[in-house]
C-alpha cells in the first residue's frame, strides 16, 4: 500500500503525507462596528478571527450613552418618567412602574396604593412585556432570515401599540405611571378590546411557533450556540430569560413578590441547556404566561380610585385647583418643585423585559433626586457576550446577540 502511494503521488518521504500539518496563517481583525444591523446600532465588537472562528472579541458598548443619571439629577421626580420610558424602549411601561415603585418605597407608600392602580400597573406592564418578547423574537428570527415571523409578530405588536396608545396617548413613550398611582384611568371598553386582541394573538403565536420551532435552519442556527451553565449565570449576575434558560429559577415576581402579583398565578418557564434555542423557547413561553396573567388581571380588575389620596404625591382634583386658592398653590408647588421625598436611599427592583430592572434612588429631601442609578439587565448580560461568542463562527454572533436582547437605551443608560 505504501509503495502504491509513493508510485501514485511520487512523494519520496510518505510519512509527511499522513500527519495533517496546518499551513501557517495569520489572525484577521474584523470590526462588527457600531452601525451594524445585528448590533442594534449601538455596540462595537472588535473580532479577532481565525478563518471563520472567533478567537478573541472586545465588546465595546457606550454608543448610546444619553446620561440618564445626569439628566435625572436636574429634573424633578415626575419629570424623570419620560427619561425612564427611553431606557428599555421595547417595554417602556415596566420602566415606569419600576421607577415609580422606587420613589414610593422612599415615601413609604409601597403597599398603600389603591387596588385598581396596582392592577392597571400589572396589566400595562404585562402588555409591555409581551411587546418586548415579540420584538426580540421577531428581530432575531429576521436576522436569521425568517422574515415571515417578523412581520406576523410586528402585526401583533401593532395591535398592542394601539391599545397602549389608547391608554397613555403615545405608542411607545407612554409616561403613563405616576408616583402613587397612574396618570389616567383606562378608557371604558378597553379591557374587552384587550381580551379580543389576546384572542387574536393566540393563532399568530401558533403560526410563528409552527414556522420556527421545528424549522431545520432556525434549529441548527440556534441549537447549542452561546451555551451558558447555571453557575456561570449566577457568577455573572444574570437575571431574566437568559438566566432562566440556564436553569436558574429566578423571577423577581415570584422570588420577591411585589404589587399584586401574589394574587395572580402564573408559572415561570425554566430551560435546561442555556443555549440560544432555550432563550427563544423561554421568551415564547413567557409571552403565553403574560397573556395568562392579563386574562386573570382583567377578570379581577376592581373599581376605585387610581391615585393614592396622599397630598404629598397626588395632584389636587381639577375642580379644586380652579376654585380654591390652596389647591391651586399646592398644584403649582407640586409641579414646579416636584414631590418632596424625605432624605434617604433605597433600591427597588422589578422583573423587566430582560431581567431584574432596579432603581437605586438617593433623595436629599428636595424635589429633585440626588442620585438615580439604574441597574440595567442589558448591561449586565452584555458582559457575557464576550465569552459566549468565543469559539463560535462569525455567523453565530448574530443569534447570540439577538437572543441577549441588548437594548441600547437600557444598556448604555
Amino acid at each position, binding site marked *: 500500500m505504501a509503495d502504491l502511494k509513493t508510485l501514485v503521488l511520487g512523494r519520496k518521504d510518505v510519512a509527511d503525507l499522513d500527519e495533517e500539518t496546518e499551513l501557517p496563517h*495569520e489572525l484577521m481583525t474584523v*470590526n462588527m462596528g457600531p452601525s451594524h444591523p445585528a448590533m442594534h446600532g449601538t455596540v462595537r465588537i472588535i473580532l479577532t478571527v481565525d478563518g471563520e472562528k472567533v478567537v478573541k472579541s472586545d465588546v465595546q458598548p457606550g454608543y448610546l450613552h444619553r446620561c440618564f443619571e445626569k439628566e435625572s439629577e436636574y429634573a424633578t421626580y415626575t419629570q424623570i418618567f419620560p427619561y425612564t420610558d427611553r431606557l428599555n424602549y421595547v417595554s417602556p411601561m415596566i420602566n415606569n412602574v419600576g421607577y415609580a415603585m422606587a420613589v414610593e418605597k422612599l415615601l413609604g407608600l409601597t403597599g398603600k396604593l389603591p387596588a385598581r392602580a396596582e392592577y392597571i400597573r400589572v396589566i400595562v406592564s404585562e402588555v409591555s412585556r409581551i411587546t418586548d418578547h415579540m420584538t426580540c423574537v421577531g428581530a432575531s428570527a429576521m436576522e436569521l432570515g425568517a422574515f415571515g415571523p417578523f412581520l406576523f409578530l410586528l402585526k401583533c405588536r401593532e395591535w398592542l401599540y394601539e391599545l397602549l396608545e389608547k391608554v397613555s396617548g403615545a405608542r411607545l413613550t407612554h409616561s403613563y405611571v405616576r408616583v402613587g398611582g397612574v396618570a389616567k384611568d383606562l378608557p371604558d371598553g378597553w379591557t374587552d378590546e384587550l381580551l379580543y386582541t389576546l384572542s387574536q394573538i393566540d393563532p399568530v403565536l401558533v403560526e410563528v411557533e409552527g414556522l420556527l420551532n421545528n424549522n431545520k435552519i432556525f434549529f441548527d442556527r440556534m441549537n447549542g450556540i452561546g451555551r451558558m451553565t447555571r453557575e456561570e449565570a449566577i457568577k455573572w449576575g444574570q437575571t431574566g430569560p437568559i438566566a432562566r434558560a440556564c436553569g436558574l429559577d429566578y423571577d423577581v415576581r415570584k422570588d420577591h413578590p411585589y404589587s399584586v402579583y401574589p394574587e395572580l398565578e402564573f408559572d415561570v418557564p425554566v430551560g435546561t441547556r442555556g443555549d440560544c434555542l432555550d432563550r427563544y423557547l423561554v421568551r415564547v413561553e413567557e409571552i403565553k404566561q403574560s397573556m395568562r396573567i392579563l386574562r386573570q388581571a382583567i377578570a379581577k380588575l376592581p373599581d376605585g380610585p387610581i391615585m393614592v389620596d396622599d397630598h404629598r404625591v397626588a395632584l389636587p382634583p381639577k375642580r379644586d385647583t380652579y376654585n380654591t386658592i390652596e389647591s391651586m398653590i399646592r398644584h403649582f408647588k407640586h409641579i414646579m418643585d416636584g414631590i418632596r421625598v424625605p432624605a434617604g436611599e433605597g433600591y427597588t427592583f422589578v422583573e423587566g423585559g430582560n431581567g431584574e430592572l432596579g432603581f437605586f434612588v438617593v433623595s436629599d429631601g428636595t424635589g429633585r433626586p440626588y442620585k438615580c442609578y439604574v441597574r440595567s439587565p442589558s448591561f449586565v448580560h452584555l458582559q457575557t457576550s464576550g465569552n459566549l461568542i468565543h469559539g463560535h463562527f462569525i455567523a453565530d454572533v448574530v443569534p447570540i446577540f439577538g437572543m441577549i436582547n441588548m437594548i441600547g437605551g437600557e444598556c448604555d443608560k
Partner: protein
Amino acid sequence: MQLQAFTPAGYAIVAALGFCGLFTLLAVAVGPKSSNPEKLKPFECGSEPIGTPRGKYSVKFYQVAILFLVFDIETAFMYPWALLFKKSLSHDAVTGALSAFGFVEMALFVVVLVVALAYVWRKKAIGWE
C-alpha cells in the same frame, strides 16, 4: 450548417447585453461622481478599518471552494443530458421513462463522483473544524 437553430440564443444574448449595457452606461453617464480619501477606505460598519485584508488566511477556504466547483460542474453536465433526454438512447420509447442503457450511462458518471465525495468526506475536507 444550419445556423438558424442558434438565432433565438443569439437574440437572447443580444437582449441581455443590450439591457445590462444600457443601464450601466446610463448610470455612468447620468450618475454624478465625487470621491474623497475617506470614501475610498473599506466600509467597516462605520469604524476605522483595523489590520489589512491582505493577511494569509486559512487554506480551508480554498479547499471548500474547489470542492464546491467539482460538484457544481457535475450538475452542470447533467443539464444537456436532461435536455436531449427524449431524443437520446436513454429514453425508452415504450414506457416513456429512463431506459436501462440510460440508467447505466448516468450511473457511471454519478458513481465516479460519489466515490470522490466519499474520499473527501473521510478526509474531513468538507467540514470546518
